[in-house]
């Protein structure tokens, strides 16, 4: 990850806000043609970890709306065995 002293030091004591790294952009907002579909496990695979957990918004950069839609899609895909509930290595 890129280190940026201005952002990382937390010397803005006033509001306690810290920005780490650069701001990520929601994939589904930047490309409106992309639809969230539970039948497409390859597209959803980007939003799950190696263990099969749903990646949090702060990591994936997905916006609130699309994160909620993604979570539903991933859970649907899990039920029909397109995505795993858990994975172990």
């Amino acid at each position, binding site marked *: 990850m890129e280190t940026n002293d201005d952002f990382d030091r937390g010397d803005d004591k006033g509001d306690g806000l810290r920005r780490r790294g650069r701001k990520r952009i929601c994939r589904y907002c930047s490309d409106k043609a992309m639809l969230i579909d*539970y*039948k497409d*496990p390859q597209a959803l695979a980007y939003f799950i970890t190696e263990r099969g957990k749903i990646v949090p918004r702060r990591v994936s950069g997905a916006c609130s709306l699309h994160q909620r839609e993604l979570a539903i899609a991933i859970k*649907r895909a*899990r*039920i*029909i*065995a*397109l*995505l*795993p*509930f858990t*994975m*172990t*290595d």
Partner: protein
Amino acid sequence: MSRVALAQGHAREFETIYILRPNIEREKATDVAGKLNDAITTTKGVLTTVELWGQRRLAYPIAKHHRGVYVFMKYLGKGDTVAEIERQLRLSDSVLRYQTIQLRNNVLLETVTERADLASVSFEVAFEPDEPEFTVERELGLDAQAAERRRRDRDTDPEEFDGLNDEEGAAAGARNRWEEN
């Protein structure tokens, strides 16, 4: 989901995916599809899409099966259509799992065309001759092809390779690892 009563001539659009056992006979698969078809027609639903995805690897084993034949269908109807379809899927022993999703709520029935040609699904593609059937003997590695199949499966999915009762397979796997390196 909305529970508002539907207007006259309107229906809801649903899609159902069901997974059949990988070693299912063709007649049984067509039998299930026929029963679902009857369920739609008797409840005055309209079938719009049927897709056979064929045999796919399951993300996790269901009823000790690692593969399954996926069938996807879209239809219009009301709650009783879904209830009847799911009842039939529950009754059938060949169905490993099913899931129904509501896609749209108030769809005017006149805007969709019924696809009578979809009434009979062809299960030709689902049964590729080179696809090994799932049997207890093979899973335990008592079959000559099991070692080869396990080795192939492990390449995509390492955690499945437990090597229980499968010394031959494990040895073959170790040999292969050695050769790859």
